[in-house]
Structure formats: structure tokens, C-alpha cells
């Protein structure tokens, strides 16, 4: 699975316009905080645990600054109906797993309604607030 940019929508659940908007938001986030956050969607997890998948993607793609390991990957598998927010080791004390889970709980209602773009931007804003950016 190749990194396509700040938004890698392999499951094809976002329109080009939505992708552009989210990418722009994520670029702004990095500009303000120096942290790097990306969105990824996959058509199938193929029995890989979603958390495992997300962390592996972040490592393989090298999200975040190398010396800080402060990357964030929001991974959604719409067909498996699962998602995970993976954090680099330099980020896990700021965006702890329980805070990440709270963010997920804010996102999933939108996903249930099929509104993926709103779900993502809600999540990105919530993470931004937790990690030193404004919405």
C-alpha cells in the first residue's frame, strides 16, 4: 500500500474535493504544530488487527519527524467497519490511547451515517485540539 499524500484513500470513500480539503487541513496542522498526521483508508484488513495495521503503516511510511517519532495515522477500514488512530512513540504521551479512543467515539457516529468526510474532519479537529493546534 503506497502513501499517496496526506490522504491515502485506497477504499475510495472520499471524493477528490473532500480529499483536497482534508489534505489542506492536515498540511495546516503540520505547519502549526510540526507534527505530521495522515489519513488512510483500506478496502480490507484481511484479518490483520486494525491497530496493528495502522501502526505498521505509520512505521513503514515514516510518518512524523524521524527524531521525534511524533506521527499520527488515522486508519479506517470501512468494509470491516473498524478504525484505529496510531501514534508514534513521541506522540503517545500527548495523544494517549484513551484520548485517541475518545476521538474515535466522536468520529464513528458520522461514519455510521456514511458521512466519512465530516467524520474525518471532526477527528482531525479533535486531535488538533489535544495536540496543540486550534480547530
Amino acid at each position, binding site marked *: 500500500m503506497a502513501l499517496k499524500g496526506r490522504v491515502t484513500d485506497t477504499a475510495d470513500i472520499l471524493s477528490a474535493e473532500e480529499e483536497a480539503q482534508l489534505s489542506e487541513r492536515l498540511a495546516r496542522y503540520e505547519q502549526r504544530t510540526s507534527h505530521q498526521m495522515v489519513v488512510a483508508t483500506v478496502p480490507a484488513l484481511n484479518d490483520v488487527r486494525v491497530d496493528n495495521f495502522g*501502526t*505498521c503503516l505509520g512505521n513503514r511510511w515514516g510518518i512524523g519527524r524521524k527524531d521525534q517519532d511524533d506521527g499520527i495515522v488515522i486508519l479506517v477500514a470501512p468494509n470491516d467497519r473498524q478504525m484505529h488512530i496510531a501514534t508514534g512513540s513521541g506522540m503517545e504521551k500527548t495523544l494517549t*490511547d*484513551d484520548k485517541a479512543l475518545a476521538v474515535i467515539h466522536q468520529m464513528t457516529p458520522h461514519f455510521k451515517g456514511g458521512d466519512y468526510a465530516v467524520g474525518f474532519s471532526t477527528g482531525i479537529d479533535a486531535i488538533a485540539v489535544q495536540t496543540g493546534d486550534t480547530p
Partner: protein
Amino acid sequence: MTYRSARWMILPVAAMSLSACGINSVPTKEEAAKAKWANVEAAYQRRADLIPNLVETAKGAAKIEQSTLEGVIQARASATQVKLSTDDLDDPAKVQAFQQAQGNVSGALGRLLATVEAYPDLKSQGRFADLMTQLEGTENRINVSVQDYNAAVQDYNTTIRTFPDIIGAKIVHGAQPMTPYKAITPNANVAPKVDFGQ
């Protein structure tokens, strides 16, 4: 004159064959694997740091058998004693001892989590639920770091066993194969899955 130029010819050839037989690739890959091991250790350390809080919270909120709680504390305490330096990664016995010690912690944690299942109040209590989420995240980090480490070990082991790097590995570095790691994680399925289906 002919003798002189012939001698100059040897140098580039020697340099070329050095780079081709694992003089450089062997230590680089070894360092890569060792660096990955540091991540494994860090993930286990993170789990060790979480345990006292988890046990305290469980103790305060539910009548969980003392032996179950002590089992976790003791397994953690003895695992902290078992250190594995990166130089010992080629010693299967030492790797296994570390694996065993961490496996005991996983087992004890698994028993605690199974017990906690009987206390829905505790499970949903904010502080405890947060710690459980962090524990789950830590188990994930352990799994991923172990996979990364094993991949690096495999890469290194393949290199030192394959011609021509085997020459550099055997003669220059005395390279020993490193030991892959088998992690045992507690009741991975007990951990709540984030499902936005229903």
C-alpha cells in the same frame, strides 16, 4: 613501470570486493536489528509502567482475589530483573529467558483481565477503562515492534548466510545469527474492538 601500475590497479579491485562481500552490509544490518530491539524493549517498559496503576485501580474497585493481583505484580517485578542487552541477541538462551519473563507477565495480566470480565462496573469505570485502552495500545506496540525486529533479524540472518556477504560475516565480523523473538500477548481478543458497525 609496469609493476607500479599493476599495483595501483589492485586497490580499486580490492575496494570493490570489500563492498561486495558484506564488509559494510553486515554491521549495518546488525545495527538495524539492534535498533529495532530497542523499540521492543521500550514497548515492554511502557507496559511495565502501566501495571502498578492498573493493579491499584483494580484493587480499589473490585474484590479481585489477592493472588491474581499479586501474580501480576510479581511477574512484573521478576521481568524487570531480566535484562537483555543488544549484544545478547545472538544468544538464544538469553532471548528465551527474556521471552519467558515477559510471557509470564502476559499470562498474569491475562488472568487479571479474565477476572475483570466479571466486574462490568470496574470495566466501565473511567480510570480503569482508560488504563485498559492504554494497555491494549501497548500490547499493539509490542506486537508491531516485535514484527519489525523479527523482519530485521531475518534480513540480517539471511545476509550473513548468503554468498558473498557470508565471507565478510565469517571472516571479518565473526557474525552470529540473531534470535527472532516470539511474543506472547494476553487475551488479545478480550480487548475492546472499535467497531462502528451497529
